[in-house]
């Protein structure tokens, strides 16, 4: 396994150097965390160098965008990321992310490149692409952009037993997606899902497609496993600030702690981020796929419980 990981890392580096994409490193400990209500960072809270607690990065996204704003070149990074509370057969609280950015690319062009990279690692498979809407319409006969929360909940309860689960539209969409759709995606293929509901756009550009606003975000699924998440990146500093504030409002509503907003990132966006697309891919999950295991513990030298 350690040999397979080493070979994967060197082939990833070769893939990027062949395309003149620069490898970069960014700090793991940052003074602001992420506002996304569904991601919890870990905090390092004591030490002489710390005037206040710092967050272990949940992804290198903000720092890499600052680099893009400064230099405008395509860049990639293989980084450790940390997410509190994420442990299971596909999650380890500390994990490896491969993240890269392509100035001038739209999200469909980047999907193409992601497919090429994954193909180089696990061999050829057909590529499928579905919009989020298409996926829900085809498999569940419901329009995820227009269905009410009650309709989505009723649908979920027809197929699953969510007990006394309660929440807003996105909770039911996430439940349907993760329980009913995801397990069927990418069966022998590379399956891209794109154009997400605006409420799930995160850091993606929002555009109008077929009469609804969608976030230009995409995900890659292979054999029922989520492997990568990408965006046609939001470049508007004011809009980004509003989304951070909306995240924090949602956090308070859900009884979570508010997170400081990353002013460095906002300053970089204000300075000017080139229009670009970026993607983060789970390296451990890619290795799981290449070695045919369904447990992330099998591809880690020392998993969370043993370090």
């Amino acid at each position, binding site marked *: 396994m350690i040999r397979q990981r080493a070979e994967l890392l060197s082939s990833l580096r070769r893939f990027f150097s062949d395309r003149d994409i620069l490898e970069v490193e960014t700090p793991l400990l940052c003074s602001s965390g992420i506002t996304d209500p569904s991601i919890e960072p870990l905090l390092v809270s004591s030490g002489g160098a710390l005037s206040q607690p710092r967050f272990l990065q949940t992804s290198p996204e903000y720092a890499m965008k600052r680099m893009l704003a400064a230099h405008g070149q395509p860049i990639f990074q293989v980084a450790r990321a940390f997410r509190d*509370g994420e442990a299971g057969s596909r999650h380890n609280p500390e994990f490896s992310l491969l993240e890269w950015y392509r100035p001038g690319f739209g999200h469909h062009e980047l999907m193409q490149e992601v497919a090429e990279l994954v193909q180089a690692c696990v061999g050829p498979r057909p590529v499928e692409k579905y919009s989020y809407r298409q996926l829900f319409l085809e498999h569940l006969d419901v329009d995820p952009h227009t269905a009410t929360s009650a309709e989505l909940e009723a649908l979920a309860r027809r197929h699953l037993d969510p*007990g006394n689960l309660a929440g807003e539209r996105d909770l039911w969409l996430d439940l349907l997606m993760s*329980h009913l759709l995801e397990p069927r995606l990418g069966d022998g293929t590379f399956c891209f899902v794109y154009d997400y509901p605006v409420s799930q756009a995160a850091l993606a550009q929002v555009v109008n497609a077929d009469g609804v606003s969608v976030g230009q975000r995409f995900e890659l699924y292979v054999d029922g496993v989520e492997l990568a998440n990408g965006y046609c990146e939001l470049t508007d500093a004011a809009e980004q600030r509003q989304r951070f504030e909306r995240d924090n409002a949602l956090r308070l509503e859900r009884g979570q702690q508010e997170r400081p907003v990353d002013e460095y990132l906002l300053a970089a966006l204000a300075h000017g981020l080139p229009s670009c697309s970026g993607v983060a891919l789970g390296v451990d999950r890619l290795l799981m796929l290449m070695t045919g295991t369904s447990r992330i513990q099998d591809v880690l030298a020392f998993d969370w419980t043993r370090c």
Partner: protein
Amino acid sequence: MANYSTSEFRSGMKVMLDGDPCNILENEFVKPGKGQAFNRVKLRNLKTGRQWERTFKSGETLEGADVMDRVMEYLYNDSEFWYFMEPDTFEQYQADAAAVGDSYLWLKENEKCDVTLYNGTPLSVAPPNFVELEIVETDPGLKGDTATGGTKPAKLTTGAVVKVPLFISTGEVIRVDTRTGEYQNRASKS
């Protein structure tokens, strides 16, 4: 009882759900990278035996169930209850028909079995995998017929009816697999 959070759920853990004690069989953490986290949990209701899957929001908690598995000796039954004794303390427990279920077919006096206690009362009873029981009624044995492979029903002391080879006769003791209700072999007379 203590409360357990979804991240602590382990296979074999006993929890209270919708008022019934349940056994956790599997716990899968499900989380889209940019979405909400769930735990997809496979459970068995220990009262009804029903097995199903329930989804929880990650971080939700359930109260532990006061459920214990004990090895006990089966003593006897009256018209209403079956009585069991804990061999170390000699403490006796009475189990009703709902707890005993079909296990009564394989309960032999003074034999050890697994009794699951819920709040101190038997919730279910599992007989040993194999028991030796005497036949009280079967068609006369065909002496020497060990080759034809035919079978006939035989009634045991507990009331259970099992298929036995034709050469077995009333009064003999046989060994039965309680999980399948199948005849295994002839046992020496007890």
